[in-house]
């Protein structure tokens, strides 16, 4: 009889391994959300010159636990005219793809659930499925605000999926693999992909902000316009599940960024102690989680036309140029690192320097148009 790890029969181990992986994932998702909510409150409090939670537990550490228990104990309310099966299914449709994403994340050397050779494609596929849940939630709530939130979400997420995937494709072209483990192994040294492909990172970062519905792209749940968007009719733990899914998605996209551009689990001392890789990976992931929070506390929300215009007129064309340049340079040079880096940094400079110029021209155009219309109104009002 063949003996697997820990002296367990391999067929049983295959099942046991799955059970352990799912249990660990749920543990990670739930606790990650608790930690992130606490961090978000504290960080926003510091940035807005407040104290933040401090009553419950030391430094307010137990506040999120108290909130979670409150959510669980809340009455389960469903408005009468909501479409019951869809209303109840929507949180699950949003939540389950996010949990499934954790399977391919490379937490450390030998700490990956499954080393899928199409891991990155798997992650983008699952990421695209959450829109379905949000749209259903918006429609089934039978509420105009929810419907608007769902519609906005559908438009926004489908649009920003394009530059996000284009950003990922650039890295895949450069590394030559879709496997998360291979991509991590391709950047062992300090020269991580972020130095070579900064523009791809920038496009993916912006798209990731939009895909996780974070500021400045949180139009689907814009409180000042839509009450709470697609979340309006949800309360109690169903609402909580949506938020768990949002924080989980933030973790997943942060982990993708940490893996693809910042070397994943690689860091000082990993070769000697493999377990250290998990710590490096977590630190890198949480760096991006904190960056998301920083942006949320800093930037105002965009308008829907600005959002779409930026995606289709700026991000997608530049991302396409980036892919073309990267592909040509990989074919043209035996060691394409320097030319690709030059091209990418040039595109970053173009975006950063060019945006104010185009915005200034638009502003001037708006101003003259407003002046003209005001002039016409004054002429009409004149006796």
């Amino acid at each position, binding site marked *: 009889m063949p003996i697997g790890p820990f002296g367990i029969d391999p067929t049983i181990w295959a099942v046991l391994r799955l059970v352990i992986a799912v249990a660990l994932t749920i543990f990670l998702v739930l606790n990650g959300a608790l930690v992130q909510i606490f961090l978000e409150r504290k960080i926003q409090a510091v940035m807005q010159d407040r104290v933040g939670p401090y009553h419950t537990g030391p430094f307010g550490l137990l506040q999120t636990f108290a909130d979670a228990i409150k959510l669980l104990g809340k009455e389960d309310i469903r408005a009468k005219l909501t479409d019951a099966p*869809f209303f109840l299914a929507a949180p699950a449709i949003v939540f389950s793809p996010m949990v499934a994403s954790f399977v391919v994340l490379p937490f450390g050397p030998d700490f990956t659930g499954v080393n899928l*050779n199409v891991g990155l494609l798997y992650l983008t*596929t699952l990421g695209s499925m959450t829109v*379905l849940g949000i*749209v259903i939630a*918006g429609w089934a709530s039978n509420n105009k605000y929810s419907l608007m939130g769902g519609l906005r979400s559908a438009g926004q997420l489908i649009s920003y999926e394009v530059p996000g995937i284009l950003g990922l494709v650039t890295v895949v072209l450069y590394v030559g693999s879709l496997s998360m483990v291979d991509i991590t192994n391709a950047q062992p040294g300090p020269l991580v992909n972020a130095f070579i492909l900064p523009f791809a990172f920038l496009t993916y970062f912006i798209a990731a902000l939009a895909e996780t519905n974070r500021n400045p792209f949180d139009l689907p749940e814009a409180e000042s316009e839509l009450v709470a968007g697609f979340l309006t009719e949800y309360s109690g733990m169903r609402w909580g599940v949506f938020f768990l899914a949002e924080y989980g998605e933030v973790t997943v996209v942060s982990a993708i960024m940490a893996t693809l551009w910042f070397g994943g689990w690689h860091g000082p001392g990993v070769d000697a102690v493999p377990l250290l890789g998990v710590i490096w990976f977590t630190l890198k992931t949480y760096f991006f989680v904190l960056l998301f929070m920083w942006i949320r506390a800093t930037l105002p929300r965009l308008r829907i036309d600005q959002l779409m215009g930026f995606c289709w007129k700026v991000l997608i064309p530049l991302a396409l140029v980036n892919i073309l340049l990267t592909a040509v340079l990989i074919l043209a040079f035996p060691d394409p690192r320097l030319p690709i880096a030059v091209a990418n940094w040039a595109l970053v400079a173009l975006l950063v320097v060019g945006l104010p110029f185009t915005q200034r021209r638009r502003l001037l155009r708006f101003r003259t148009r407003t002046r003209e219309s005001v002039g016409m109104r004054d002429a009409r009002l004149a006796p």
Partner: protein
Amino acid sequence: MFDFLEPLFFALFALGIIGAGAAVVLLRRITAQALLMALTFACMAGMFLLLGAETIALFQVLIYVGAITILILFGVMFTKQEERAYGLFFQKQAPLATGLAVIVALPVVILAFSFKDPATPSARGSDLIPLATSLFTDYAFPFEVASVLLLAALVGAIVLVKRDDQ
């Protein structure tokens, strides 16, 4: 020990495809139809997985569940939720529709029952590289033609929805 799993999953996916597909046609609730269509697509992705073509399966979910169903729902969301007589418009065409359906279905049925055991699929592993090589070498010309067609459709859609005053 787990040999029964593959036929079991095949049965599940087949049931999903046929059942959900029939429900899409027969049901009267348009949101449910859209979601069941997503289920059909997902089950088809499962079939691809069983055949060892995980890349195609993932693309199936990414494009059909993640994008096309959303677009359909996007259109459906503008409809009202209460019951209405969707059937009225099509009721007169029932004999014609049956005839057409039979004409389309006959070759498919004949093909399905005359189908012999296919060549065994290549060893389990990645279908990514075979897929890429066939797309960009053997079938490069049809691939480019299809992409030009899609581009033309895209440009046409933009021209159609463009406002006149701009």
